[in-house]
Each structure stands twice: as structure tokens, then as C-alpha cells.
């Protein structure tokens, strides 16, 4: 019997679950996340390993905040030589123009806008000048190189040519923008540079995971979770570490889908301080259309569309009444009224209203009774409003409630058909990692006229090939997402095409 372990390193807790070959949860554990995240990770891993036969574990999937933390704390980041191909175009806004000074000082080993790049119709802006690349890199103190070509999502050859040169002549790792983001030069370039800066972090995480497996005598194949709720091999994670950012919310959404059986649903992850709402479409997280900011840097990196509201189990109820945004946080067990403290919280309001069967007991709200019941009405209205924003007006789908504060949600919410409260919802993130698929994507521009069908087929084949590269079983890969967006102000009609393929992992035994 083969087992899979899902691990999720979150801001507060590190969770671990073990699923059997029929996807039944056979063990789970929650441990505090430690400053050196590997310590907490091992503690959670050991806790579940005690309950199962380690030799039966065939795969281990890790969702982690290592990369996010490295960027937020400007810690452990590598120095990157930043190359943009597109001169003389684009020079009015050089690379890293919108970066915070401290992050730029930490990461940048110099920036250059060199000849190269393409127009929207594929015509070259200027010829690639490999000599200029050499002159820029010679003697430069960089640990990696980031290359971003204008319109490279539609014409990738120049980025690849620079990568070959850098690998052959300088032996440095190279991050290529067409592998990372979609159109929008500055945002894609930012993601590409962050990716290159994270190579060291990726080495350490994948190394730590590998050595953790060895030290526990596990021969399981390891994977890392990425921002869209799918997996990558460690080899791919070392190449595209920035893709691990945002894996937490994605895993939570995928886990909620799996635990509840709902493929199209709203998911509310209720924590101590805030509630994250997301949307499942066909079992995958709906992605945000807006640019995503990471550590003060805008990227067009595709992230789950998450709406966070300041509402959680620890939210403090004030006179008025008001709810949050202040929270007692992890001190809820000593400060909340129901647990003998003196601070009225949303948890107290939930208990008073009978929403938490297992909590509370003989506690009496006394003078706070009216305030708390009013506070719960405010909280319900906030949830209703947030749910409405996320449904985009489409009613009739269920809401899956996960997270430690899920009991706070009312039994019925306008705009959703049902409120589902699956078992094991408190470890939904780790479950989401354990059940994840492998995926690949393509994002490019096509002329709307001739060869359109042919080029869409080519993009589908490329996306499937990328999924296989990420570890998917070639026989099980499907196109899970395909959309075209018409572009404005172009006299030749053109569309932006997005294709995503995903499939279960290749069997390894």
C-alpha cells in the first residue's frame, strides 16, 4: 500500500497529513512554524511518521513560505545580473525602476537594456548582440542572470540563445522570462529577477527536504507545491522557485475541494485574524486578473484570486459595536471571555449564538450579551458582502468553510447554495498539497486570422509537454484551462491565448 505525505508550512503552523492509496486521510499533525522553517517541518513530519509505516510512503509534497519569507525579509537572496533584450525600445523605463531601494540593493548586480526583442507581430526590434551580453557580464559579481525579452512570450528564441551563452561561458544559472509570466514587460521582468534571486533559497529548501527524507529513511519522491495548486519536481523547483510563492492559498482551495467533493465553490478559510476567500472553478483556484505585489514589487505572476477580510476567531469586539481589525491572535485561549479572559471576541459571539458545539460550556456572556449578538450580525454582513464580491453575481454554488474559525460562519449565507464543513478542514492546506496534480502553461499572442486553430493546437501541445516536464503522467494530462482575450487598438485582429494543462503524477513504482 502506498502512502503520500502532504506538508504545508504556513505563517503560524506547519501541517502534515498522510493519505493512503485511496486518498483517505490516515494521519494528521499540526506544529508551530519555526523561524528556521525546517525545524517545524521536521517536527510535523515526525509526528505523522509515528503513525504510519515510513517505507510505504512513496511521495512527499511540500508547500512552503521559504521563498516568500526570503523576499519579504530580504534574506538569503542571490545577486542577479539583469538583462533586458529590447533596446533601443523600453529604455525610458529601465529594469527594476519600480523596486524598493533596499530590495534592489540586495538583489541587483547591475542592469542593462541590450539590443534584441520583438514587435507585437514578431518582427525583430533589433538583432541580438551576444557580444554586448558578454561585455555586460564580464567581471560582474553575479550569482545568476535574469533575461527578459520584449514580446518573448510570443518569440522565445533570443532568451534561449542568451541562456546557452551564459551557461556555456559563465556557468551561471539563468532565469528566462517566457517561462515565468505573461505579457506586461515590467511585471514579467520583476518575476524573472526575483526567480533568479531565489536560486540559493531553492537549493537550500530542496536540499533540506532531500536530507530530511534521507535522515528519516524515506525513499519517497519529493515535490514542491506552486501558486496554482499544482506540483513541480525538485529539479523544476530549483529552476522556477518563484512559482512556489502563493502555494498556501492555492493548497487551501484545492484541499477544500477535495475534502468537500465540491469542484465549483466559494472557499472561506477563517483564521484567527483574517478570513481568506477564494473561488474554485473546476477544482482549481480562480486566478487573479490584477497584478500581484510581492515584497513591494509588482509581478504579473498568476496567483489565486483571494479576498482577505479582517475577520477571524480572535477579532476583538468593540463598543459600537465594531468587529476587528484588531485581534487577540494566538492569545485567544487566555483573553477571550469564554475562556475566562476579559476581551470580548468574535469567538465569544459565535459560542453565545450556539455555533460552536464543542466550545464554551457553562460560560455566561452577562453584560456583553447584546454587544456580542450585534457583533455577530456585523460579522455575518461582512461575510455576506465578501462572498457576494467573490461570486461575481453567480449564485447557486456551495461555500466550503475551512480553517480554525470556520464555526463562526452562519449556517446559511445569501448567494451560496449551502455551507459545507468537511472533516479535516483544519489541515486543508496540507491535504491540498498531498493531492496536487502537475501542470504546465502557455501564454502568448496570436493573430486572430489564419492558422489560428493550428497555433492553438501547438500551444496546447506545448502546455501538455510542460506538464510532463513538471512530473505529470503523459497519459493523464488534460487541458484544464483555455481562453482567448481580444486585444484592442490593433488594426490586425489579435488575441492573447492562455492554455493550462494538468495531470496526475507519473507512477513511480
Amino acid at each position, binding site marked *: 500500500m502506498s502512502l503520500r505525505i502532504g506538508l504545508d508550512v504556513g505563517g503560524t503552523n506547519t501541517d502534515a497529513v498522510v493519505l493512503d492509496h485511496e486518498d483517505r486521510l490516515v494521519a494528521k499533525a499540526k506544529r508551530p512554524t519555526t523561524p528556521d522553517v525546517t525545524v517545524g517541518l521536521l517536527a510535523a513530519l515526525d509526528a505523522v511518521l509515528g503513525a504510519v509505516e515510513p517505507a510505504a510512503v512513496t511521495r512527499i509534497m511540500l508547500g512552503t513560505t521559504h521563498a516568500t519569507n526570503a523576499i519579504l525579509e530580504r534574506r538569503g537572496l542571490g545577486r542577479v545580473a539583469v538583462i533586458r533584450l*529590447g*533596446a*533601443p*525600445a*523600453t*529604455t*525610458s*523605463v*529601465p529594469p527594476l*525602476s*519600480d523596486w524598493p531601494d533596499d530590495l534592489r540593493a540586495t538583489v541587483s548586480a547591475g542592469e542593462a537594456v541590450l539590443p534584441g*526583442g520583438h*514587435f*507585437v*507581430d514578431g*518582427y525583430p*526590434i*533589433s538583432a541580438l548582440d551576444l557580444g554586448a551580453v558578454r561585455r555586460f557580464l564580464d567581471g560582474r559579481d553575479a550569482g545568476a542572470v535574469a533575461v527578459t525579452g*520584449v*514580446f518573448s512570450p510570443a518569440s522565445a528564441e533570443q532568451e534561449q540563445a542568451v541562456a546557452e551563452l551564459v551557461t556555456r561561458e559563465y556557468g551561471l544559472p539563468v532565469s528566462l522570462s517566457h517561462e515565468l509570466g505573461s*505579457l*506586461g*514587460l*515590467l511585471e514579467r521582468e520583476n518575476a524573472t529577477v526575483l526567480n533568479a534571486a531565489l536560486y540559493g533559497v531553492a537549493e537550500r529548501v530542496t536540499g533540506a527536504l532531500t536530507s530530511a527524507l534521507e535522515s528519516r529513511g524515506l525513499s519517497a519522491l519529493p515535490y514542491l507545491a506552486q501558486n496554482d495548486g499544482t506540483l513541480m519536481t525538485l529539479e523544476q523547483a530549483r529552476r522556477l522557485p518563484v512559482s512556489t510563492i502563493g502555494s498556501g492559498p492555492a493548497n487551501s482551495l484545492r484541499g477544500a475541494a477535495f475534502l468537500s467533493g465540491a469542484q465549483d465553490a466559494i472557499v472561506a478559510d477563517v483564521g484567527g485574524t483574517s478570513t481568506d476567500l477564494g473561488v474554485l472553478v473546476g477544482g482549481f483556484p480562480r486566478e487573479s*486578473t*490584477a497584478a500581484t505585489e510581492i515584497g513591494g514589487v509588482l509581478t504579473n505572476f498568476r496567483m489565486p484570486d483571494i479576498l482577505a477580510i479582517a475577520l477571524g476567531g480572535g477579532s476583538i469586539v468593540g463598543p459600537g459595536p465594531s468587529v476587528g481589525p484588531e485581534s487577540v491572535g494566538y492569545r485567544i485561549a487566555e483573553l477571550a471571555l469564554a475562556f475566562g479572559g476579559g476581551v470580548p471576541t468574535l469567538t465569544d459571539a459565535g459560542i453565545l449564538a450556539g455555533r460552536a458545539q464543542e466550545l464554551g460550556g457553562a460560560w455566561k456572556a452577562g453584560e456583553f450579551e447584546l454587544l456580542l449578538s450585534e457583533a455577530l450580525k456585523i460579522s455575518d454582513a461582512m461575510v455576506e458582502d465578501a462572498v*457576494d*464580491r*467573490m461570486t*461575481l*453575481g453567480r449564485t447557486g454554488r456551495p461555500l466550503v468553510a475551512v480553517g480554525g474559525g470556520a464555526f463562526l460562519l452562519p449556517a446559511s449565507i445569501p448567494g451560496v447554495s449551502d455551507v459545507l464543513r468537511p472533516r479535516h478542514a483544519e489541515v486543508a492546506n496540507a491535504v491540498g498539497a498531498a493531492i496536487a496534480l502537475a501542470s504546465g502553461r502557455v501564454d502568448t499572442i496570436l493573430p486572430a486570422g489564419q492558422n489560428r486553430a493550428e497555433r492553438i493546437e501547438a500551444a496546447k501541445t506545448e502546455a501538455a509537454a510542460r506538464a510532463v516536464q513538471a512530473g505529470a503522467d503523459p497519459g493523464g494530462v488534460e487541458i484544464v484551462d483555455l481562453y482567448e482575450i*481580444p*486585444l*484592442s*487598438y*490593433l*488594426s*490586425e*485582429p489579435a488575441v*492573447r491565448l492562455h492554455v493550462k494543462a494538468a495531470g496526475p503524477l507519473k507512477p513511480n513504482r
Partner: protein
Amino acid sequence: MELNESDIPALARGCAVLGTGGGGDVRVGALAATRAIREHGPVRVVRIQDLADDELIVPLSGIGAPTVSHEMPHGEAEAHRIVEEVEKIFGRRPAAIMSSEIGGSNGVAPVAWAAQLGLPLLDADAMGRAFPEVQMVSMYVKGLPADLVIMADVVGNVTTIRPVDGLWSERIARAVCVAAGSSALMADYVLTAARARGAVIEGTIGRALRIGRHQVLEALQEELGAIRLITGKLTDIERRTEGGFVRGSATIEGTGADRGRGLLLELQNENLVAIEDGEVRAMVPDLIAVVDTETAAAIQTEALRYGQRVTVLAWACDPIWRTARGLEVAGPRAFGYDLEYRPVGAGA
């Protein structure tokens, strides 16, 4: 007046409001302006009365597809190429450049071009807002001959067009733009200061700056002299691409004091017509902006999304657009709406 690095965020916000949903994203233009000021120093803003009658003003704008400018921002040479060409034709260096379109990216990007050129920026533009077509400028309304268009692209090609009128300048400029990869810089109507008087909309740089400094809805409304059409929630957004332009409509349902009311916005890159209960409450060329109720920041038509809490403001366009010729060029019929223009706030 002088524009410094610290003025750019407010200018960009104000230009976004005056873009009435279109005119392109102000972010890249603001980054370019910031860089150019850091590199070349602050930009002096001048008025027409500061210039001698025969001094030259070059109205500049970016022309092209928003998706393209997002992927391929301008270089640093285009403005130089255009000014060199102006010098060849007129035999003297221009005294100032001007924004052709204060609304959206073309309102803030000229700060970068002025800094690169070391020329002052005229406190004026040719629209007082954003419009989608080249001939929709005050100089065309005033009947100035549209006999010169100079375009420069990212690789350095310069195209000089001698069109027979403004409509031909739009047609040919658009074709050149496509050949140049759907992005170019353009000078349309090179003006002497004498000619510019009464033919441009003055004071719009200062106005955009003042508008952009407001982050509270009521204050913004007062600054604009706008009427509030509705405060509510965006409940429907529909978009389609026709003839290269994004068209569509947005529905806003009233909340709070406006509960029970609804507003339909007709969009064509810009917000063009606002309808309530079958009654037109505001229409182009008057300005209609959708702003975030909480932050008073303008929302572009492309960024409109279900569930946003918004307020729709409408205010009067420059008087030049309310003349018979102005309405012919950029009134409701110029955008395909069979409507008799009625000024915003004029009552039923």
C-alpha cells in the same frame, strides 16, 4: 511652476481621473517621468503668455495599443527625433512641448519627454480629457490646418505626414503606427504661441495636479465641480472588441442613500454615456469618471469588475467641445450614439 519627482504620483492620479476610464495606464508613464526627472532635473511648466508669439510649441502624444505599450514601453530617443525634425522644418528649436491629451498615460508621459529634451512643458493640452482618435483635438475644432504630423518609433524611424485634413491624419498616422509595431510618439499640429492662443485648453497640468492630490470623494467632487450620478456597486460588466476598440457597458446599482436606483454606463475605451431609467444623465464630451468610493482613485474601463464599490462623477467638458464644431468632432454622434447633446446637470 516646476514639476519635481514628488509631484508625479499626484499628477498621475489626476490624469487617471481625467482619462474618464481610458487614455491608457498611467503607471509606466509615471515611472518614465520619475526616471527622467532624476536623470535630467525638474521640468519647468510655462504658460502661453510666457512665450513670444513666434515661439514654437510641439504637442506630443503616444499612439498605439495599450497591450503593446505595456509590453514595449518607449525608448528615450523618440522625443529627440521628433524635435530634430521640427527644427529641420521650421529652422528653430521649439520653446516648449505640450501634452496632446491630459487624460491617462499621455498626460503624465510628456513630463518624461520634456525632461529628456530639456524643454519646458506647456500648462495646457488639446483635449482636457482623453479621446480615442487623433483628430479629436481642440486645434482641429478651431479649424487650424492639420497639415503636419511627425511620428517617431522605438527604433528611430521618423515619418513626416502632410495630410489634407484631420481625418486623414488619423487614418495615415494609424497605419504608420501599425507598421511601427503599434506604438509610436507623435507630434500633431506644431503651433506658434500666437496660434495656440484660444486653440488649446489651458491650465490642465495644474488642474490634473490639484485633482490628483484629493483622496477623499467629496473633496474630489468639489475640485472637479462634478455632480455625483450614483454611489453603489458594480453589478454587471460586458465587453466586446469592435473595429479595434473595446466597447461595452457597466451597470451600477445604488447602495446607501442611492438604494433602488441604477445607472448604465456605455463604454468605448472611455466612459461615454450614463443612463438612468432610460434617461441620459451625462454624455460625451462631458466627462464621466468611475472612482473607488473609498479612495477616490479613478478606475479604468479595463479594470472594472463585478462587486467594486464605486461612485460615478460627471462634470462639464471644456467649452470648446460644446460648440457646434466641437460636438461634431467629439459629441455623442461621433461615437455612434443617436443622441442630442445636453450638458451635464442641465436637468431633464
